[in-house]
């Protein structure tokens, strides 16, 4: 490992100033960064530690809205009573990440901003994500790659909390040298056709400081369903974050966001519109699942994701709608 200096940020503004130094990177829990430093995917000169910033690991409520500090660990977030009860999809997503060890170190902001886990990128191939000019998955081992939104890179966004945050219509607070900007969760993530080397709109000297959740509407229920190819320590093959606002048996409004299928959390506005104002019957759930996969464009080895995703959408939707 190349040697580097550690500096502690006093506050978010100070962190941003320190990230202005050449070859500086921000560290929250460090789980993702440390792995990348060991694999020489990142070779920083300065690590700017964010954990020294006070009170950025807390959940606070004001006027119904909930603000979550970006440094909260995934474990703490998943156990937070206010999140479990009113923003269940986020608690379940946080709880589904990695292992207990990873959830105790990894942070919400780090989970959202983690780099892709495509095996070509992580194993040192000079792909788009590493600043290169090609995506090796196109003609290679693409079992776990994108069926939506791919090109020129076909990574899938690896975060579990990201689809949950998009489904909850969260706002991301980003600190930069001018102060702070607020970005709707859905606009934070960017397709590879925008910039194939990156997954979001965060600039090098910006940090994701906090996440705001809008006030939970009454009669809203939500869930996160994650399909894994083994029972622990892995990313979603396919996942679904669903938020339903119900009026008795009728769905007033729905937000459905898929994970594991696209380079960004993949929202399904057309399916959401199909469900609004209707009782969610098995027939409607099946139609929604079919519509969800319209336009899917699988690669040579990941066509299995199409029926799998349909089943995930149909079953998750139905079980959430009929939950007592």
């Amino acid at each position: 490992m190349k040697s580097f200096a550690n500096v502690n940020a006093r506050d978010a503004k100070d962190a941003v100033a320190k990230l202005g130094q050449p070859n500086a990177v921000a560290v929250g829990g460090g789980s993702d960064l440390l792995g990348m430093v060991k694999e020489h995917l990142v070779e920083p000169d300065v690590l700017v530690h964010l954990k020294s910033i006070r009170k950025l690991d807390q959940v606070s409520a004001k006027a119904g809205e909930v603000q979550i500090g970006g440094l909260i660990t995934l474990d703490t977030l998943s156990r937070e009573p206010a999140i479990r009860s009113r923003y269940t999809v986020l608690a379940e997503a946080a709880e589904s990440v990695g292992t207990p060890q990873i959830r105790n170190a990894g942070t919400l902001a780090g989970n959202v901003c983690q780099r892709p886990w495509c095996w070509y990128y992580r194993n040192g191939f000079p792909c788009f994500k590493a600043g290169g000019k090609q995506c090796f998955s196109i003609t290679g081992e693409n079992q776990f790659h994108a069926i939506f939104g791919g090109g020129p890179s076909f990574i899938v966004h690896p975060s579990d909390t990201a689809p949950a945050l998009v489904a909850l219509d969260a706002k991301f607070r980003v600190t930069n040298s001018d102060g702070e900007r607020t970005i709707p969760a859905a606009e934070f993530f960017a397709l590879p056709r925008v910039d194939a080397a990156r997954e979001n709109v965060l600039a090098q000297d910006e940090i994701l400081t906090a996440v705001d959740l809008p006030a939970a509407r009454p009669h809203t229920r939500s869930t996160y369903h994650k399909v894994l190819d083994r029972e622990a320590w892995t990313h979603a093959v396919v996942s679904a974050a669903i938020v339903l606002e119900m009026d008795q048996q009728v769905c007033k409004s729905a937000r459905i966001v898929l994970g594991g299928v696209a380079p960004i959390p993949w929202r399904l506005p057309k399916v959401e519109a199909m469900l609004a104002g209707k009782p969610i019957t098995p027939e409607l759930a099946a139609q929604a699942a079919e519509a969800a996969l319209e336009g899917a464009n699988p690669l040579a080895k990941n066509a299995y994701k199409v029926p799998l995703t349909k089943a995930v959408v149909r079953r998750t939707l139905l079980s959430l709608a009929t939950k007592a």
Partner: protein
Amino acid sequence: MKTMSLCVTVNGESKQWTIAPGDLLLDVLRREGYFGVKRGCEKGECGACTVLVHGKPVNSCLIFAAQVEGGEILTIEGLAQGDTLDPLQEAFLDHGAVQCGFCTPGMILAAKALLDRQPHPTEEQVREALAGNYCRCTGYRKPVEAVLAAAARRKVPTEVAR
């Protein structure tokens, strides 16, 4: 190389060590003689390097030592009280939950964090708590039995970790 000072409490003892900024917690602990902290995959996959920081299991291979400044660390060496083993250690012996032994320190520490938080876990909760610890010998059945047995045997701790 630049060095820095690290102040931590390990197994109840205050320590002040000189470290390099890039030292992993795993490397520092082993350098200081805590060989119960095992070097496994070094990628956060196997959990053999698990230690408790403020009562919570973490992979010491995925944390810079500098990140735990001021922290309270528990390694497997700190679990027994003199010659008296922790009920978890007793249960692992009684149930034959130790074969090659390489995963055992991490597994016992992960289980301890669970029992401190949840003194009477279900089997599912035990399995979830051990999900970050690979074992290639036992098939997990005996470790899970051992943790459940230890829970039954162990006095409910007065201090409940958050």
